[in-house]
Every structure is written in C-alpha cells, then in structure tokens.
C-alpha cells in the first residue's frame, strides 16, 4: 500500500513533470545533433516509426526509445494531474480558469495519441506517373491519371501544376477529382498528392500516396490546445484588468 501511495504521489507531482520534461529535452538535444549526420535516419521519412525502430540497431535508435519511455510516463503524469486538478477544483469560483489548463493537457494527450497512431500505421509511397497511368492503391482500388497540366505566366514560367484523376473500383469509373500542390484528393483514407511535374520527354508527375491515421487526432488535439490556451490567456487578462 505504501509503495502504491508513493508511486501515485510521484505521478501526481508537478516536480515529476518538470524532471521528465528536462530528461526528455536532454534526450532530444542528443537526437537533434545525431540525426542530421547519421544516414540511417533518412528512411524514417518513408516508414512508420515503430517499423523503423524494429529494423534499426539499438545503438542508433536508443534515444527515440528513451524519448518514448519518458513520454509514456509524462502521459500518465499529465492524466493523473489533470484528473486530480478537475476533482479538486469542481467548486471553484472561476471554473473556466481552473479548467482551461486541463483542456490544454487533453489537447497535448490527443497529439501524443496521434503520433502513436501515425507511428504504428502510416503509409507513404511515391511514383512517377504519365498521362493514362493507372495506379493501384493499397486498399485495392485504382486511380487513373487522365491529364497533367501546368499553369504558366505570359513569359512561360511555370507557376503551378495539377493533375486530373479518376478513381476506379473493379473497372468502373466512380469519382473524378483534380489534385494540385496543397490540394490533395482523399479516397478511402488515402491522400493522393502531386509533388512536381516534368515535361521531357513527355509529361510525368511525381505522385505521393499517403495514409496518416493520426492526422485527425492531431487536429482535434491542436484545436483543444489552442482553445485552452486562448481561454486561459483571455481569462488571465480579464482577471488582471
């Protein structure tokens, strides 16, 4: 019982959060200097984190494992502290001011959840496609690239590019769309992105197909985080005035 109480007190402590943040910073500082000079980290861009971790030697990946470990304890610490704070401040005079830091914490936890999901199940693949190419997506449906277009200024400078696409399932044309930079097309959880185009010897587009299962959770987390921060700031300013 004593050990359980001690562990609980440790997880409920702000001091624990501070030391965990310090430890996490130290690990990430190390990683930030090691990552740019080590070739093995380049493949991290194309495979999910946990797959990369499984395939990489511990001598290279140990700092990411350590960061994940610290983040796990920090998650528990954030959860316990938030629950305790909400329980304690239920009857507070200014409930919104008392709750907004916890909304920030929940936003942070959603972002962590997003990273966990992305690290487990993200997918990225790139290919050059010409007009008329039929690309099969990982879910079995196919996308046909019907036209590759550019937008030029009067001097001929390329200002932008796009591609007209059509999704097909078992040979039937089902949906038409157009993709441009910053304007991908989404189909069954996959995003189709156009990166660049080349016109010699014939028009081809560099296409990326990606799936990021954490994206929606990251967006929810981000919205909660900003909502909490803005509320906290506004209430602090009002309180001061």
């Amino acid at each position, binding site marked *: 019982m004593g050990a359980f109480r001690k562990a609980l007190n440790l997880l409920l402590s702000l001091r624990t959060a501070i030391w965990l943040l310090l430890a996490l910073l130290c690990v*990430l500082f190390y990683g930030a200097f090691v990552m740019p000079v080590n070739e093995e980290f380049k493949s991290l*861009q194309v495979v999910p984190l946990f797959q990369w971790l499984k395939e990489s030697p511990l001598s290279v990946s140990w700092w990411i494992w350590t960061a994940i470990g610290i983040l796990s304890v920090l998650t528990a610490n954030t959860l316990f502290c938030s629950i305790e704070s909400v329980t304690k401040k239920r009857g507070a005079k200014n409930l919104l001011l008392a709750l907004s830091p916890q909304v920030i914490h929940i936003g942070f936890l959603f972002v962590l959840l997003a990273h966990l999901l992305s690290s487990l199940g993200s997918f990225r693949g790139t290919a050059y496609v010409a007009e008329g190419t039929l690309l099969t997506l990982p879910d079995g449906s196919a996308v046909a690239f019907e036209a590759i277009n550019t937008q030029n200024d009067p001097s001929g400078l390329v200002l932008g590019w796009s591609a007209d696409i059509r999704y097909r399932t078992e040979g039937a044309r089902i949906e038409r769309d157009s993709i441009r930079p910053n304007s991908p097309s989404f189909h069954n959880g996959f995003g189709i992105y156009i990166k660049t185009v080349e016109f010699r010897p014939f028009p081809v587009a560099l296409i990326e197909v990606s799936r*990021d299962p*954490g994206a929606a959770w990251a967006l929810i987390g*981000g919205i909660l985080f*900003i909502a909490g921060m803005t509320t906290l700031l506004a209430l602090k300013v009002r309180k001061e005035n």
Partner: protein
Amino acid sequence: MTIVAILPAVLYLFGNRRMPIIYAGFVIQAGYLLFRGVQLGRLPVVGPHDTLYFLSAATVLFALPMTLRMKDRFNNLYPMLGLSSVFAIISFFFSPHDSPLPPVLKTFWFEAHVTLSFFSYALFGIAAVFGITFLLNRDAAGPGVSDDNPEVLQYKAVLVGYCFFSAAMIFGGIWAYLAWGTYWLWTPKELWTVILWLFYSLYLHARLRQWWSGKPSAILGILGFVIVLFTYLGVSLLMKSSHTF
C-alpha cells in the same frame, strides 16, 4: 531603399531615447514591410532577409506595449530596440528573395505558420531581455506581481509567445499534411521546434513551483531564446531540412 530600411535601426540606437523618434522608426519599418508586400504580392516572410526584418519589426511591435506601464521603461525597452536593430542590420547581409514562390508555399497555412512563428520568436526575445534586466537589477525590481517587475513581464511575454508558437506549430502541421501528406516530418527543424516548444513548456510549469520562480526562471527565459536563435538561424542555415533557406 536599403538606406530607408536600415534607418529605423539608426533611430532606435541613436534616437536619444525619445519616444517620437522610436515610433517614427517603427513606422518606417512597417512601411518597408508594406512596400515589400506590395512589391511581391504576398507577405514578405520568405528567406532570411525578409524574415529577419519581420522579426525586427515584430520585436518593436510587442516591446512598445509590453514596457508601457514600467516606471523604468527605457532600461528595458532600449535593449529590445538594440535586439531589433541587430536583426534589421543582419537582414541586409542576405539578398531579398524576389523570385516567385514554389506552388507549395502559396497557401494561407504557410503564411499563418511563419507569421505566428516570428511573433512568438519576437516575444521570446523580449522575454530574454526582461530576464537579463531582472538579473542585473534584482534588488530594484518591483514587487512579485507588479507590472514593474521584469520577471513577471518575462512570464507574460513567454505565455503569449507560447500561445503563438503552439498555434504556429498546429498551422504548420495542417500545411504539411496538405502539402506532403503528413503533419510531422523527421527533419532537424521539426525536432528543434519540438525542443523549443518543450523548453517553454518546462519554463511555464517550472515557474509554478516556488523554487524555480525568480532567478532560475529568468535564466530559463534567457536560455530559451538561445534555442530560438539556433532553431531559426542555426538549423535553417547549417542543417538540411524542410526549412532550409
């Protein structure tokens, strides 16, 4: 145009601490940014020249209201104007980015991401100056909660800067998802950005504890700006990433 753009730095540094001269300097800075914006047909926030100049102007933009209620205003404002002048002068060592933007940068999310980032960098710079003036004049600082205490103002600058920086990261994530299919890339810039965000999270949490408030948190606020400078200039100039200049 270079002379007009560099004039504010001269006014800030040699304006004999007169407020009308400082305001005139800021108006000229804002005018130069407006001129660049009209010339380019977009926000002038691409490349080291424009971003450093934007950072310089943003520093003055926030420094003026943040020091407004201080009795000893100039002891805090003057180093901030110095910081702004340094950024303005360094910006002219880099040539302006006048060529058309690649299509991937022509989006609201990019402009919002960069603008908010530089607002937060400016506030973190101001916080560092407050930290230094607090450490130099600790005995003369006002009571703990007053608006005359640089340490309290440092906390306020960090809090608002942190809010801007968090929003900048979220907007950057949305942009990255729409441009590259993922809200997170494993590049040095992203990692340093997270380090910076965690560092200021540490500052805000640490300051809640009595042991850390005062001198230790003032030092943290100063160290934070060192990380800001490395994240902004060091990583962008020295390391290959999605944010390379």
